[in-house]
């Protein structure tokens, strides 16, 4: 790949990251914790956040009102754990989210449950708890905006957002 096409590919990834990871708050205080390092790097590079986000999958989904991890969620989180164990320069904040079917404060608590379920699974696979923070956005940051189950299913999620760690 020549330099020009590398730049083009990187730009495309940044654009993709912007589309697929609109969890940012847009505020100054949110830049580090919530944007994380997004999908930077090349998805073909297994040590890149882009690879983590796209090839492994940075999010797991939940059933209505539930915080239990499905088989599919467990396999995604296992792969996330493997990646985190290999790429020790990164820490992560796990963001828990709920769909809009519920009251605001209950959904905050539900999102906290989901984020914690993902975190505990990663810890059980050997990732140091000190590298993993959790935060809940409740129903404040839907990724899909329609009001039916197709959108709700994608909004009930826990997203592992990478941050370049202290050793960066």
């Amino acid at each position, binding site marked *: 790949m020549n330099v020009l096409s590398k730049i083009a590919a990187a730009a495309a990834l940044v654009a993709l990251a912007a589309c697929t990871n609109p969890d940012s708050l847009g505020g*100054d205080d949110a830049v580090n914790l919530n944007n994380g390092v997004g999908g930077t790097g090349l998805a073909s590079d297994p040590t890149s956040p882009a690879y983590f986000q796209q090839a492994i999958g940075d999010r797991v989904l939940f059933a209505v009102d539930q915080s239990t991890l499905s088989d599919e969620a467990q396999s995604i989180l296992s792969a996330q754990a493997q990646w985190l164990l290999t790429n020790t320069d990164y820490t992560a904040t796990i963001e828990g989210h709920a769909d809009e079917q519920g*009251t605001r404060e209950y959904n905050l608590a539900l999102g906290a449950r989901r984020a914690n379920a993902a975190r505990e699974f990663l810890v059980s696979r050997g990732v140091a708890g000190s590298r993993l*923070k959790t935060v809940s956005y409740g129903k404040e940051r839907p990724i899909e905006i329609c009001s039916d189950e197709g959108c709700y299913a994608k909004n009930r999620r826990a997203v592992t957002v990478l941050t370049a760690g202290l050793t960066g």
Partner: protein
Amino acid sequence: MMRFLTSLLVGATLLAAPAQAQNQPLRITIDEGIIEPLPLAVPNFVPDGVAATEYATQIAQVVAADLTGSGLFREIPSSAYISQVTSFDAPVQFADWKAINAQALVTGSVSLSGDRLTVRFRLWDVFAGTELGSGLQFAGTTDGWRRMAHKVADAVYSRITGEGGYFDSRVVFVSESGPKDQRRKRLAIMDYDGANVQYLTDSTSIVLAPRFSPTGDRVLYTSYQGGFPRIHILDVGRVEQRVLQSQEGTMSFAPRFSPDGQTVLFSLAQGGNTDLYTMNIASGQSARLTSAPSIETAPSYSPDGSRIVFESDRSGTPQLYIMAASGGEAQRISFGQGRYGTPVWSPRGDLIAFTKQNKGRFHIGVMRTDGSEERLLTASFLDEGPTWSPNGRVIMFTRETQGADGRASLYSVDISGRNLRPVRTPDGGSDPTWSPLLQ
């Protein structure tokens, strides 16, 4: 039923104070249901000079808007008037008002001296041909003209219903703008009717669910400033905020003041589990009230501070529970179909307002504090977050519309379920908290 008596009793007792209002002929008794709104005339107040004319007109309009907005009064349009009120002190031409069926008549005067306004008013029982209560006077600077109008309306409401008013009050809410997946939220304050909106925070961080202090001078709310939800306290007068102390690695939200204003009751999520805590605002000393693996959130104190109603999913779905303010055993009070949340104890102590979700619809409802006599007041795709008017007669809440263009806005409804009305705000609005009556 609301009913009004137009007995022709005339006597000296008509000048009695509002506390003895039950002896007065012009009367709305508010209880279970409602009938016809009471016909009311509020002619322009009489200005003491050209400079006061605009205030005199607008004050009368706000008085009329407050009273008709309660759903208990119907305004007779000025086009129907037979006579005009051109002097505050001249005798009222009762026959002219009786002829257009104005049961209540509010007359007033406005005088302006520099930037000082003085507003006087009288309330008349037209069919009895007498004054109801005695004339009152409010004075202040011109920028407070709407408050003076609200105070007149509160006095009229109070004299005719025998209950406290709610018009001279403010609402703090979350102003919302932007699309659903990029929503920007900031705290705002306004008069109860949507006038005089001022913003209290910028929208760089998500802010949620403000709650007024019992004296209306401070507001607690949740903010993501710093990246994680934490409780903030805002001085309304100075528009100064600070974060309350919190424990690293936890999230705190759903804050409410205790009735004495000294303590904050809130939810703290730690390790995925959410429980209720209290913290003394001055000392920072905290206490844990619940320790269950279930979610405990959305608490609300009884007005006497002795009990707490809250939301918990310990039974498998969110339901309402009551426990002592010190914690301990809780009793479930919601037993209807569906899920219950955001309970708020009424300022009178008699009712609990709540959000109910059932069969894909949301409702605002009220029940007695033992869970009996549940009544649903509203129904829509998404109604939530009730807050009580200072007199416990009206509930304001958030209504959000369905779909990709979904938008949140504020509504109010009488506790009878009547008089559902939008509260207009410049942008979208959610999470209202109603102040006590202003002093």
